[in-house]
């Protein structure tokens, strides 16, 4: 009994040697990282003509030192008696440290930094001595927002995206129902229907820009079957003369946003479809049979028996569609750059445009737009977390 207590005591004691060695290595690494390693040092050491070329080697040198430092830190902490006594309490923090640290630095802290930028007037420049060139202006940027027609256009378009993008959910369900069969080759059909989701939005944007092009796109081609004929012009070259001009979908403020949303729906429908296909796979046959006994058929069966069972799929589909709608950026950047005259801007694109587009450089104003977008998104994030919280409570 006494012996084992002594043994326990020994087992839980701080090992001075481990802590000292690890501590010293850790200190040395931190010193190197902060005071010694820099791109200019690496540049001089290896003789790169430009600093940019020294960046990547510097990064890898730093990474190597950082890995040593992390190792030393782990060894340092595990040497202490408080760790040894309470492993179960400390272990999760060790497992979390790296991922959480990176996530804090790159995601959580920047959110608050952006919010603080939104109270400044700053063009993003530091002067030659690295001194910040901005000034604090309080709520000025938000007041400007309220008076900016482009902001309202963006807000209105965001709303349009939210509403119309939701079409992806029922259409996805419809296609999923259509494909939920067991005929030969259906698996290939399912994969091919899912195809658009895998392609980058930039490529989807380019495809549709071309399709919409009023001169030689897919739509104008259809159009000219009905309304156009090819004639010789004054110079004897062939030219197309149309009795009704083909619509310039992306060139008209009234249709451009719809055109982009339609393009965005294509991959989004595919996403919702796959969610529902998986959901349909798990619909319980018993309940369907029970429904049949009750005389439910077709739409009634879908509404009263199948859909309730698809609720988890619907939830995910709605969440990803909302997030996708609010994040829409790539499509707008490739298809219209917010034009014509800013009529296809959404908050995400307008923020980018004001902050860094063409060197406009309104960092403060851009951050105010980003903050508004963030607050809108926060509503949905909270709802999602609330749902998750309910699930967690149920699980316990």
């Amino acid at each position: 009994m006494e012996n084992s207590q002594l043994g326990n005591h020994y087992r839980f004691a701080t090992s001075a040697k481990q802590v000292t060695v690890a501590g010293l290595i850790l200190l040395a690494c931190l010193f190197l990282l902060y005071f010694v390693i820099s791109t200019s040092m690496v540049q001089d050491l290896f003789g790169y003509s430009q600093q940019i070329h020294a960046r990547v080697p510097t990064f890898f040198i730093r990474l190597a030192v950082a890995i040593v430092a992390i190792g030393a830190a782990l060894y340092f902490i595990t040497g202490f008696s408080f760790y040894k006594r309470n492993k179960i309490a400390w272990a999760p923090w060790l497992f979390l440290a790296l991922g959480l640290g990176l996530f804090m630095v790159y995601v959580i802290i920047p959110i608050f930094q952006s919010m603080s930028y939104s109270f400044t007037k700053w063009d993003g420049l530091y002067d030659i001595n690295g001194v910040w060139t901005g000034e604090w202006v309080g709520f000025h940027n938000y007041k400007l927002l309220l008076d900016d027609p482009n902001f309202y256009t963006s807000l209105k378009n965001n709303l349009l995206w939210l509403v119309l993008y939701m079409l992806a959910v029922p259409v996805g369900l419809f296609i999923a129902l259509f494909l939920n069969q067991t005929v030969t080759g259906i698996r290939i059909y399912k994969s091919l229907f899912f195809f658009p989701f895998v392609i980058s939005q930039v490529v989807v944007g380019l495809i549709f820009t071309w399709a919409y092009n009023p001169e030689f796109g897919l739509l104008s081609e259809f159009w000219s079957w009905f309304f156009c004929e090819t004639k010789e012009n004054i110079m004897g070259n062939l030219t197309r003369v149309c009795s009704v001009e083909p619509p310039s979908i992306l060139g008209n403020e009234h249709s451009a946003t719809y055109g982009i949303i339609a393009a965005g729906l294509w991959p989004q429908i595919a996403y919702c479809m796959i969610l529902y296909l998986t959901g349909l796979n798990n619909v319980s046959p018993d309940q369907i049979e029970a429904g049949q006994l009750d005389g439910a058929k077709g739409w009634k069966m879908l509404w009263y028996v199948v859909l309730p069972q698809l609720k988890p799929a619907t939830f995910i589909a709605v969440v990803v569609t909302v997030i996708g709608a609010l994040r829409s950026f790539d499509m707008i950047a490739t298809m219209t750059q917010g034009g014509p005259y800013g009529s296809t801007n959404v908050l995400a694109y307008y923020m980018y445009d004001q902050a860094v587009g063409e060197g406009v450089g309104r960092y403060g104003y851009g951050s105010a737009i980003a903050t508004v977008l963030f607050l809108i998104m926060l509503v949905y994030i909270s709802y999602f977390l609330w749902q998750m919280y309910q699930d967690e409570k149920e699980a316990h």
Partner: protein
Amino acid sequence: MLNRFNLRKIAQCVALSSLVSGTAVASELVITFDDLNPDKKLAFESAVEAFTRAHPDITVTANNGDREAHKSTIRNALQNDAPDVITWYPGNRMGPFVDAGLFMDISDLWSSDENLSSNFNAIKPTMTRDGKQWGVPYSYYQWGVYYRKDIYDKVGISEPKTWDELLSNCDALKEAGVTPFTIGTKFLWTAAGVFDYLNLRTNGYEVHNDLTAGKIKYTDERIRNTFAKWEEMLDRCSFVSTHATMSWQDAISPFANGDAAMYVMGNFSVGQYKEAGLTDDQIDFFQFPEITPGLPRAEEAPADAFFIPAKAKNVENAKKFLAFVASVGTQTAWNKAIGQLPPNAKALINEDDKFIVKGMETLSTASGLAQFYDRDAPAAMAKAGMEGFQKFMLDPSALDEILENLDKVQAEVY
């Protein structure tokens, strides 16, 4: 190629280690250029080659990138990755960087270099801010109306001198089934060219300058007059209908195909017309016609220039390069190659190129030179302004709303 590169690096390392560490390499020069168009790229590369021949002790590293991207990347370049020489625009567009102290004051070069101090008087004001000079221009070019001479001949009309002549030409062209003007406003700035000319011809250089400097409101009666002329132009001289989805290069195809007859453009576009299959006999150039009679004629003449970032490492070499760029020989050869005009008054122009000869004549007799709307006005103003111009072109009835919004932006930006 890869091997040679590595060898050079190793050699540098060896050379370095024999020196005291920390001393900069004395014979480096890093230049960042921003034009990938084949002719522009070639002209830059041959100038660099000539410079290396003249200064064999200097190792030049030349970077070249896309022009539109450069407008955003330069911010980072100046603050963090400073080369020794970089291209940028003079006028107000260099303002933010000068004010933040990111460009180097090179007034000493302007005063000590005999060529710079004597042959660049016309353009010196645009390179000056706070009484100091910040860069050296390598080229500039005229704007105006490029037109299909063969179509004009066929329709039986001639170069218009006045606004009324232009309008009646348009009537005749439309009669013949030709759209008078082509333009591609997807990237907005082309519309600013039309606006600048209408404003310069309606109100003159002073008013235009005051507008871009933020001293006159957009709702000013004089600016409204300009837009009234524009509306008249939209009405009688219609533009190609799909302009909002076209880039300026896209807009060349109706011009080349004979569906449109005129194009308000800069002289850099001539190469593209020829690439599209048009010959010197088919295209010609006239100055934008007079609107308010008797007004002194001002022109658009944007210049491109080289600057030295304040963080440049090899300043002496950079100054050598700038002096070299300014020299009569370089300016002559460079601009001959790219079909533009040399800012150096002593430099020769290509007498065989009718557009260059006309451009020279146009600009040397002009009463004032504007840099272009998006260079004269601050970037945030220019962006809003050009969106407004595009909107006006598509929907002239929204004029009041557009102008009021521009006033708001103006109040915020300046």
